[in-house]
């Protein structure tokens, strides 16, 4: 049994959201820089260079990469030998989010009632928590702070077995085509195949945080990732959607067992300001 006082949770959550908001991942920055070298559209190349300059300003001045610092989503793996002490675990997480957004000059973008009142909660809470109990005595965090420009362009489709590989690829490519300029391309696309309606979406969200340049270990899924990526980059959408060959930096797919009658597919689109951070206590 390992005791963890909940203020340590607050502190870690705050640190991770600030890291995510100010510091772009090295994988994303390298991919945007590489694309700026090869992008044939002059205006597209100029957009990619502006993104690199923007990453640098955010890092050096400790300001948000993008003003939309998202809705806070946390994937937390709690070791089963951990005992949290000194307060409510979930409230400690929410407090970490509150402190990061308030003290870090991040925008508060959450409204309470989504349909009728739409009143800003003022501190970017509540965050959304996805918890798993795992072996061990550590607590692992993956936090994401996706903006809604890209979240709004995401989609779930209840495919069936007969749709096959082509059906999944077409759904991914069609979702990117429909999104066009809206989600701030070049995009990073997370895909969940299988499971249930909500499980596919959860996998897709996790996959937006898988490093750009990594591949699914199953060569069949890795090929699907590569094929979908190539097809999206032939759409012509380009950086900022104004034409070019750099429309998507990565298609990251993962899968989960599913029911004999179905094959849910979720496509979660993320912008080039792909903000996430990982940490452990």
């Amino acid at each position, binding site marked *: 049994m390992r005791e963890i006082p909940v203020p340590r949770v607050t502190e870690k959550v705050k640190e991770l959201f600030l890291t995510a908001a100010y510091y772009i991942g090295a994988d994303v920055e390298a991919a945007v820089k590489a694309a700026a070298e090869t992008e044939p559209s002059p205006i597209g190349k100029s957009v990619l260079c502006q993104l690199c300059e*923007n990453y640098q300003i955010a890092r050096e001045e400790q300001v*948000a990469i993008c003003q939309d610092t998202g809705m806070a989503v946390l994937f937390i793996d709690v070791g089963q030998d951990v005992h949290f002490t000194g307060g409510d675990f979930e409230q400690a997480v929410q407090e970490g989010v509150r402190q990061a957004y308030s003290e870090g000059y991040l925008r508060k973008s959450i409204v309470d009632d989504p349909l009728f009142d739409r009143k800003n909660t003022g501190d970017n809470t509540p965050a959304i928590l996805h918890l798993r109990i795992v072996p061990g005595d550590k607590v692992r965090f993956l936090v994401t702070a996706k903006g809604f420009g890209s979240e709004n362009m995401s989609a779930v489709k209840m495919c069936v077995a007969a749709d096959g590989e082509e059906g999944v690829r077409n759904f991914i490519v069609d979702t990117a085509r429909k999104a066009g300029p809206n989600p701030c391309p070049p995009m990073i696309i997370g895909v969940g195949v299988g499971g249930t309606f909500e499980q596919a979406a959860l996998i897709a969200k996790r996959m937006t945080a898988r490093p750009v340049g990594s591949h699914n270990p199953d060569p069949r899924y890795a090929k699907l990732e590569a094929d979908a990526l190539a097809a999206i980059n032939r*759409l012509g959408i380009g950086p900022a959607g104004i034409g070019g060959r750099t429309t998507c930096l990565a298609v990251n797919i993962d899968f989960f067992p599913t029911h004999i009658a179905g094959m849910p597919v979720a496509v979660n689109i993320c912008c080039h300001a792909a903000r996430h951070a990982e940490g452990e206590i």
Partner: protein
Amino acid sequence: MQEYHLKLPLTQEDVQALRAGDMVYLTGPMLTGRDAAHKRLIQLLDEGKELPVDVRGQAIYYVGPAPASPGHAVGSAGPTTSYRMDAYTPQLLKQGLNCMIGKGRRSDAVRAAMREYSAVYLGAVGGAAALIARSIKSMEVLAYPDLGTEAIHRFTVENFPAIVLMDAHGGNLYESGPAQYREE
């Protein structure tokens, strides 16, 4: 493709001269507004009431800025996706708004209203929010302070970089740009 350095607010001559694909650098005052402020403005128009800000001949930037940290006039302030304002936009164009700054596609109704009332739609690079903030020299709240980031502000900008996405003559860079690079 032309490059223009223009003073805000834009004149009708400026608006008529711009073509999709042109680069512009804007200097002067612009309004800000997004979902919640648009909803309120249109409600006032529907009730036949006066607007709290004069939109005639003005530019509006679809943005909800991040709070300014010490030493900054404004926090990160990139464009939000414009289609969410589409339901409200034709009425504001009818009131005389002549320039919108955002990102993403617009509806057919907005594009028709842009031709009818002579207005231009400019794009700022989505996500380049810290870079864009450098061209914003000051910010003040003009209306709806209770909306926080969604309030209507006046930004005073210097050499604010933007691309003409849709012009007053039907030109649309979101069609003509990708068409050059599509390989399907």
